[in-house]
């Protein structure tokens, strides 16, 4: 199987889907002539032309709403935000229109669009450009919210997102675009709402998604050396959430550490903590731990910015706490 980078995997997904369905268009900042701010859409303009790969001005609210309207009228737009940080300008279009159009119209109008781009902490970018914003999207009914952690998942999940009849928020970790992994050329789809068990274990469940999966797996490796066998689960999709896999694992290990690089207050991670406390209460041998971003804006200084994020060390210590070893 060929090794591909995350950005290549995402590009393959868009390319294959655009070849399949002429109703799919891509629009956003720098997607066409510049070949993508992060080179995800490289070559797509040449292949599909300016009618389908459309550069927009820096006006997130405007072009995001254009994606909503075009989807209501029958197209299947992929809207690329240069980053989720800038997509805050477009939050009304997502919160007020994309997520609720089907409901408000009594089921008459859906919004089959994908809103995608880089999310999460990066490096040396300071408070406005380096943050994980999944919690605000996962909060709203009517959206699907997904965030892959490997190039293989990225391709299969983006293809599923494009074919989905609902608005899908597709979050790519900014630092992952160059990460490589095996991606088959053959057609495959990864359905939403199915978590992946990355490592089997019996002592503690480590739950996460997106970029932190790499530090989670690193932590799991270290824990093994201490004789702690962690079960590692990649949620992949936050809405729908694979509650079944979460509960099955926690009921087996009786201990859980949730890793979410967003802030801890009212986050996906804190919500899952509540779900576990409610549905696995009798199985828990220790309080559920949450390793989140520190509750601070992202600092510029590298030492400080690393200290603000989940790390293998923080995860190891949280896992030990669930086993009363620390």
């Amino acid at each position, binding site marked *: 199987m060929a090794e591909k980078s995350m950005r290549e995997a995402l590009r393959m997904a868009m390319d294959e889907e655009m070849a399949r369905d002429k109703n799919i268009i891509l629009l956003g900042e720098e997607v066409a002539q510049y070949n993508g701010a992060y080179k995800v859409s490289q070559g797509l303009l040449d292949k599909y032309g300016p*009618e*389908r790969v459309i550069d927009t*001005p820096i006006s997130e609210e405007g072009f995001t709403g*254009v994606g909503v*309207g075009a989807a209501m009228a*029958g197209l299947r737009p992929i809207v690329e935000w240069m980053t989720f940080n800038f997509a805050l300008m477009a939050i009304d279009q997502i919160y*007020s*229109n994309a997520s609720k159009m089907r409901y408000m119209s*009594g089921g008459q109008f859906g919004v089959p669009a994908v809103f995608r781009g880089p999310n999460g902490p990066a490096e040396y970018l300071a408070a406005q450009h380096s943050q994980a914003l999944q919690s605000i999207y996962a909060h709203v009914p009517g959206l699907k919210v997904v965030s892959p952690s490997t190039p293989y998942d990225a391709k299969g999940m983006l293809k599923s997102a494009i074919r989905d009849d609902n608005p899908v928020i597709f979050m790519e970790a900014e630092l992952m675009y160059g990460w490589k992994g095996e991606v088959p050329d053959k057609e495959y789809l990864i359905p939403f709402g199915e978590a992946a068990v990355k490592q089997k274990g019996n002592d503690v469940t480590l739950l996460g998604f997106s970029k932190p999966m790499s530090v989670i797996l690193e932590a799991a490796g270290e824990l093994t050396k201490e004789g702690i066998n962690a079960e590692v689960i990649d949620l992949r999709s936050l809405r729908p959430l694979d509650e079944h896999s979460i509960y099955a694992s926690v009921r087996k290990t009786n201990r859980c550490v949730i890793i979410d690089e967003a802030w801890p207050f009212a986050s996906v991670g804190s919500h899952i903590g509540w779900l576990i406390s409610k549905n696995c209460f009798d199985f828990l041998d220790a309080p559920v731990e949450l390793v989140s971003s520190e509750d601070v804006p992202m600092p510029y200084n590298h030492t400080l910015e690393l200290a603000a994020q989940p790390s293998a060390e923080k995860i190891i210590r949280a896992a030990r706490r669930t086993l009363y070893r620390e």
Partner: protein
Amino acid sequence: MALSRKKNKESNKRLSLKLFRTMLLIRRFEERASQMYGIRKIGGFCHLYIGQEAVAAGSITSLDLTKDYVVSAYRDHGQALACGLSPDELMAELFGKKTGCSKGKGGSMHFFSAEKHMLGGNGIVGSQIPVATGVALKLKYKKEPGVVLCFFGDGAIHQGAFHESLNLAKIWDLPIVYICENNQYGMGTDFKRVSSVTELSITSSAYGIAGEQVDGMDVMKVYDAVSRKTATARNDHVPGFLEIKTYRYKGHSMSDPATYRTKEEVAAYKEQDPILLLKVQMIKNREITEEKYKKLDNEIKEICRNAVSFAEGSEEPLVESLYKDIIA
């Protein structure tokens, strides 16, 4: 089918009658809605369209809604009626019944009809303007001959969504006509107090889109101006902008007594009532008689009474529908 205005007496008469009937239907429907709100059959926000009828009727009558689209804002009753949604399904929607045009999930601000190409109804000021622009992008991409009419009030002019959308429509040559219904008050605020320019029609010129001001109390002037703009948008792929000056007789919503304006001001506008003006014109042109008018008015009042009966007699949505139509 849209009616065309030719130098033909019969077709002019047909057009006048169609416009007159649509305006009268909107007026009588809104009067009923107001009554029903008063006795709490209708709740929430209810923004009435009384006084502005010429804008919806004059604009939408010029469209062919098998090809064209309408996108509106929270004051959407008039546009929905002009698009041909039935008074029954609209009144039922106001009553929150499952026979409503949005199955009771939308209410006053969220009238929709896929069949009639009415894409809302939107409760956030200016939020529908980019959406309408996206519908126009679809028309262009699919090389379809339609045009989009996007309605909003003078309050929306200051939103970024308006400015971003006009820029996009111009750089992409989209078939869309933006219609600012300047009823002169953004809720309780006189637009002149909060607008850097009071001729709102010039705001589009910064984006290379020619704007035009139209007397919104004269339905024929509205019809002609919109017809011209839609023809340009369709044929020459140039977006258009109209500031249609109008006036709402009622407050911003049913909860607003509108004490921020004088009785004299309202009375002056009522003298140039769009329905009255057209009626005088039609009588002069021998297109209608007082007797025929009475008959038509009674018919329409009956339709609106029946709409209330229909809404009252309709069932509540099942509680199980709470979780329906969130995700496909």
